[in-house]
């Protein structure tokens, strides 16, 4: 399988990237790790006459952990997330989720920027970033702007990012309390049948805040505010978990595909969310 021919660019700075995007418009596309884009090009599902390789662009890498936030450059790979002890201390859920993406070879190449910009409902990082209330830094011909992960996804492969904008970084507030990323898949290396990201805090046995987002159960990731609300003020007992599951099921909209029929997906979504809440709460 060989992709259609394209012109290849490897600019050293973001100005260079933006200039090529401006010149070629829709015909140009950036590539980070290439592990979503190259398979699509090989299948001729993506047509990219002008391919801009981001690997040499300065300022897009690096993991910065400060007192109240974390900044990940767009080119930070899943393997780097897994290997960073500092990041794991500050936000262990990132490592827990990254370890459940694909396989070792893919994780050396796949980047956080590519994963969140791609717009594939199967990608794991978008839901996680909604759970953690991250924001994405974009830069384009009109300058830089920030978009909340919770406002970024519009439909499958449709995001708030304009074609001539590049995602430069992901920033998130330091997560608090217990966490869990639970994922059900058909086999190792597979995309989720259902996945749940949960971050939860408590005091004296009572839940004080809970953030819940689901992956691959709609054409976008689903941040379920109601599911989180259902836990706040409770002791996270069985009744509260059932209420959170019911709220979550009201927010997702799965479709039937090779991972199963709708009823099965809803069932799995509930099971996965229950496990995620239980594990997160045990760590809170």
């Amino acid at each position: 399988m060989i992709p259609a021919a394209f012109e290849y660019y490897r600019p050293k700075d973001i100005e260079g990237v933006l200039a090529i995007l401006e010149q070629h418009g829709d015909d140009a596309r950036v590539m980070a790790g290439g592990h979503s884009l190259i398979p699509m090009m090989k299948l001729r599902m993506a047509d990219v006459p002008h391919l801009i390789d981001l690997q040499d662009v300065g300022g897009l890498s690096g993991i910065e952990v400060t007192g109240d936030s974390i900044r990940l450059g767009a080119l930070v790979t899943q393997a780097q997330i897994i290997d960073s002890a500092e990041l794991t201390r500050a936000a262990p859920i990132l490592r827990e989720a990254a370890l459940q993406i694909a396989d070792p070879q893919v994780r050396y190449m796949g980047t956080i920027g590519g994963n969140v910009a791609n717009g594939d409902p199967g990608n794991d990082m978008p839901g996680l970033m909604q759970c953690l209330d991250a924001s994405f830094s974009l830069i384009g011909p009109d300058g830089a702007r920030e978009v909340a992960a919770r406002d970024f996804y519009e439909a499958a492969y449709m995001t708030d990012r304009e074609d001539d904008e590049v995602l430069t970084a992901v920033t998130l507030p330091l997560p608090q309390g217990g966490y869990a990323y639970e994922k059900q898949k058909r086999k190792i290396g597979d995309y989720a049948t259902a996945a749940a990201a949960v971050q939860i805090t408590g005091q004296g046995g009572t839940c004080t805040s809970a953030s819940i987002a689901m992956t691959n159960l709609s054409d976008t990731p689903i941040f379920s505010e109601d599911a989180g609300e259902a836990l706040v003020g409770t002791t996270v007992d069985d009744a509260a978990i059932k209420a959170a599951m019911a709220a979550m099921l009201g927010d997702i909209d799965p479709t039937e595909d090779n991972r199963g029929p709708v009823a099965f997906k809803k069932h799995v979504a509930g099971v996965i969310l229950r496990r995620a809440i239980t594990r997160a709460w045990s760590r809170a």
Partner: protein
Amino acid sequence: MSKKTHITLKVNGKSEEFLAEPRELLIYTLRERLNITGPHIGCETSHCGACTVTVDGKSVKSCTMFAVQAEGAEITTIEGIGTPDSLHPLQEAFKEHHGLQCGYCTPGMITRAAKLLEENPAPSEEEIRFGMAGNICRCTGYQNIVKSIQAAAAEMNSSQSSSSEAVGHKTTEAAE
């Protein structure tokens, strides 16, 4: 046809220089241009790992990287890991413990295993299975592959422990 690009790579210690279309995938460069046919084409869809090579210290499925992306990189294939006269401990162990049957996945399997042992010189069975998850074998059922990697690790550690402690030990718990 797009403009050809000038590419330089170092493959198994040897410098290579050529002109190629940017769409040329690294696996084709290796197999058809450089006649390095150890890395195999299995699924060609980024899943099976038969085409695994090491690119600047990362295990990469070479069907999912353009040769131009690897410009300036150092690449190691199975050919750079051992020779028929001087097998790598992994090759010796795969032979000894029946870590292969048809052999199609073996070059990628061993290339990945070599990198895994570099990162984690004494992996548990679970860590081996997790660290080898990007390489599919249709014959062995993996049992003997795991055994082979464990045997190679033991061999490499015993021949090393006399000289120096293994450094850079990094463990990754199996999340799946």
